[in-house]
């Protein structure tokens, strides 16, 4: 089975080893990864997609069989960045936009750890945009999980770097006039080793992409397209959470399906393209630096 086949939702098979079986949650020790005692319920609005991404992340880590002690979740500020507090790993909730910079220091100090930076679209691409491209350029061994709900949710619905043109927000009352960032294209251009996109409707696909990303040595990016029904959805009359979730199903297309279209059809596509876009092996920063230390200590000038 080719990588592409695995990644196509259309060809997902329930018996695929990467896909958790039904009833997994009840049987799985995954539940232990939640800090049950204090922090629940979550701060997220009922119907929010971020919880789906958290579930996918837990399943991906569980699938990889990682030691909780060797996993660090680093987050900035925002709705998405609250995710780590609910999970039983080494969790670092930092300042707005800086998750990747903190994660860089942590990864350098602990190359043996899996470091996952969890960010929203504003956190990762506006205030944190510089850190995003440089972490990718360095091929730092970090997984960047970007939950893209196209809005600043926590502050009440201001337009973000991924708000669509024309979209209404509290700071774009006449419609957004700024073109959005294509997150995956940016990550690819900056040099990420692994780049995938899916949506919170396609939760099992997210599991798979996250597992692949976390397993990757170099800088990996997973864009999880979500929605904010309480702000963006309300301002733009997009309906309930269920309506917005359904629209992710109706308005997204697997990359392989896109590639079967004619060039004209492809050019006219406005749907969210799901799939893996890059999966290459490049020298990972902490390994390269470790080699440098070895050389220097051997007396090389």
């Amino acid at each position, binding site marked *: 089975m080719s990588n592409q086949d695995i990644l196509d939702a259309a060809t997902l098979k329930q018996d695929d080893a990467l896909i958790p079986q039904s009833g997994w949650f009840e049987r799985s020790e995954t539940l232990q990864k939640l800090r049950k005692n204090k922090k629940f319920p979550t701060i997220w609005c009922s119907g929010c997609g971020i919880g789906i991404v958290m579930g996918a992340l837990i399943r991906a880590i569980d699938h990889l069989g990682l030691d909780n002690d060797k996993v660090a979740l680093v987050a900035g500020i925002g709705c998405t960045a609250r995710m780590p*507090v609910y999970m039983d790993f080494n*969790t670092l*909730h*930092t*300042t707005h936009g800086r998750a990747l*910079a903190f994660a860089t220091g942590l990864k*350098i100090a602990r190359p043996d750890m899996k470091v996952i930076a969890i960010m929203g679209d504003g956190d990762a691409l506006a205030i944190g945009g510089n850190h995003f491209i440089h972490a990718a350029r360095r091929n730092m061994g970090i997984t960047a999980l970007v939950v893209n709900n196209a809005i600043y949710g926590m502050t009440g619905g201001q337009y973000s770097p991924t708000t669509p043109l024309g979209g209404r927000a509290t700071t774009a009352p006449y419609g957004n006039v700024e073109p959005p960032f294509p997150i995956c294209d940016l990550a690819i251009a900056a040099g990420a080793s692994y780049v995938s996109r899916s949506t919170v409707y396609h939760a099992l696909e997210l599991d798979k992409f996250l597992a692949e990303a976390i397993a990757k040595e170099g800088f990996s990016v997973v864009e999880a397209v979500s929605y904010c029904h309480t702000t963006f959805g309300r301002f733009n009359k997009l309906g309930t959470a269920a309506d917005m979730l359904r629209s992710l199903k109706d308005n997204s297309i697997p990359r392989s399906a896109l590639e079967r279209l004619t060039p004209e059809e492809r050019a006219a596509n406005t749907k969210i393209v799901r799939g893996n876009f890059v999966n290459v092996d490049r020298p990972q920063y902490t390994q390269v*630096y470790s080699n440098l230390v070895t050389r*220097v200590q051997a007396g090389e000038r």
Partner: protein
Amino acid sequence: MTVKLMQGNDAIGWGAIAAGCRFYAGYPITPSTEVAELLSRELPKVGGKFIQMEDEIASMAAIIGGRVGGLKSMTATSGPGFSLMQENIGYAVMTEIPCVVVDVQRLGPSTGQPTAASQGDVMQARWGTHGDHPIIALSPTSVRQAFDLTVKAFDLSERFRTPVILLADEIVGHMREPVDLPDFKSIHIFEQQVTDSPADYKAFRNSPGDVPPLAAFGTGYRYHITGLFHDEVGFPTQRLDEVDPWLERVNTKLDKHLDEITFLEEDYQEGARVALLSYGASARTARHAMKLARQKGIKVDLLTLLTIWPFPEKQVEALGERVERIIVPEMNLGQLAYEVERMVGRKKVRRVVRANGEMVTPQMVLDAMEN
């Protein structure tokens, strides 16, 4: 060791190595860059790590992340970069992550004059980040002190789980003096000792003691760190019964140990009616002026502050009771003089200030003594 001609910035780099610093993240900026250059060369030799980040915000974030992972960490910068670091310095205060921030002060505000000397960041070091908070700032007056105080900065940051600012200046940073550094093996600084089991560990416990030990990530102690107000295990909280004990502990943890934090040099003369009080490069001016005055037969006290923050209130207050006038030379418009005035009253304090990139001269100090 042997005597070497060395500039202050290099002494800071060597002080970091001697103190066990094994991670440096920084961004080039005059007049601090030599610190980064030395550590990029020397850290790999001792198994340490160096990275040049994309800006000072990232540098500050990275060293906190590095310390969370267990490496003693430092960054160095100057005024504009120090301004960019302020938010994450507050994060280090809030999360009680030890780290050392070197600020080799240059003339500001803004880009100012990158190669000109200044002591204009005294108040930025104290209050640059938002919110009430404790902070330690040390200020060297010589190349050897640049080494010694860097070592001290690491020791205090670990002992009190707080960022420590090494408030150097362009003159001390770029000045070359012969120094005989101690054997690095003879240098011991405070090491975290976590005795609780992971199940019992509370990274932010409020008792017993002022400063709970810090466990590194990846060592079996899984816990939460946040810049939000948090409870003893690190979870965000708004409950006053959890927030108030934290506030009480953190905002008094330095006050209870001032004798371990306060470094100063007193050169007092019986019967002196005037005192000179200074720090950093300006302390060299003050010492020169003291010698000239004493040669003329004028009795004068000299107090050199190596610890700027917490401000040595008790010692300055006592000095105010000894003398009629305290002269405070500094390369700003009187930032530390505010503090001296707060302790002894405005009428007793004579500011001798310069904020144009030039040093205060001994003659300016002598003039202030006589008029």
